[in-house]
């Protein structure tokens, strides 16, 4: 079971790390924030799987803190991105 959970953690990690390509490619700010958000959720999943696979105290707390701080930073990003779009004359007023 520990082996399976480790393998699942590796798979989820590989997937969300791959998703980070979206941070590089963009093209909009929203795309980059999205990829970071996926990394946050994937990170939580990896931590919960690791907490069960390797008996280490406090890893679930790390997942909890990751969730809270990911929410905080995503809100900060979304607000900043909204201001950027509004300020950029080429993009504001589109659609």
């Amino acid at each position, binding site marked *: 079971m520990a082996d399976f959970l480790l393998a699942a953690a590796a798979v989820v990690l590989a997937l969300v790390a791959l998703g*980070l390509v979206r*941070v590089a490619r963009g093209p909009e700010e929203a795309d980059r924030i999205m990829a970071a958000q996926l990394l946050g959720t994937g990170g939580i999943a990896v931590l919960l799987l*690791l907490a069960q696979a390797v008996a280490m105290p406090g*890893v679930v*707390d790390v997942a909890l803190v990751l969730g*809270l701080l990911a929410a*905080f930073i995503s809100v900060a*990003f979304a607000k900043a991105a909204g201001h950027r779009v509004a*300020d950029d004359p080429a993009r504001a007023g589109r659609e």
Partner: protein
Amino acid sequence: MSLAFALDAILGLAVLAVAAWTIVARDAFAAIVGFVAFGLLLALVWVRLAAPDVALTEAAIGSGVTGGLLVAACSHLRGDAAAAGIEQPRAILRLAAAVACVVVTAGLAAIVLLLPDPAPTLAPQAAAQLAQTGLGNPVTAVLMAYRAIDTLLEVVVLLLALVGIWSLAPDRFWGGRPGLRQHEDPNGMLVFLARLLPPLGVLVGIHLFWVGAVAPGGEFQGATVLAAMWLLAMMAGLVDAPPIDRRWLRLALVAGPAVFLAIGLAGFAVAGAFLAYPPDHAKLLIVIIETPVTLSIAATLGLLVAGPPERAPPG
């Protein structure tokens, strides 16, 4: 190839790739997103290195709060692309920085890889004296008992950083409120989140602070969660940043370092050295220090991200 090695290899490669991209990214906002992603991955690395206390701190301060600070700075730059562009360092400087980084990394790698097996360590002595401190978490024992002087200096450094940020304000704004007034739709999603999440976050923050005595956690991690929840409420416009000349605010900021320093100086009289604790009361003194320190750090971190005052004080 074992599964653990595969997991660690993926993690290592991802960390290196994200770091490399963050350095060469052109757009400041994109680079900040990359930096936060780097911090999240680094927290996973710390867990794989069996250091959940450091992972907590990295996820909270290294990634979350520092990310908030950088985003705030980026927002201030947004109208000023030309001014930011002038500051591009010359190629020779960048090359020198790259060479210096490679040399330091190679040196660290050499030291770690060439350590004798078993490596020299003070861990057994630290664990042996744990009972005297009354704590169950050796990391907290190091931070608050064996090397409390370092923690005191860290707390003071945070306060000095805040004073530095406040000094960036123009004279006419001194004493005013940090940041601009946030206007958010009172029926919108952000206000909903800012009403629902902070109570839970405060519980988690207090839990982390309290459980740090026996499990991964401690006052820095708990305080950061508290600060993040305060900042969330500020971003949603539910609370306004306090004017920086308020007495209660300044009291909250210095209460932690002041109590820490006072107990440290009292250590001369009671136990013979600065920050020495009498053996029977070590745990009690540590809790007495940690409680105001948590409050002070939460206030300091929140105000650090809120930034220098941008509004004139009333009256």
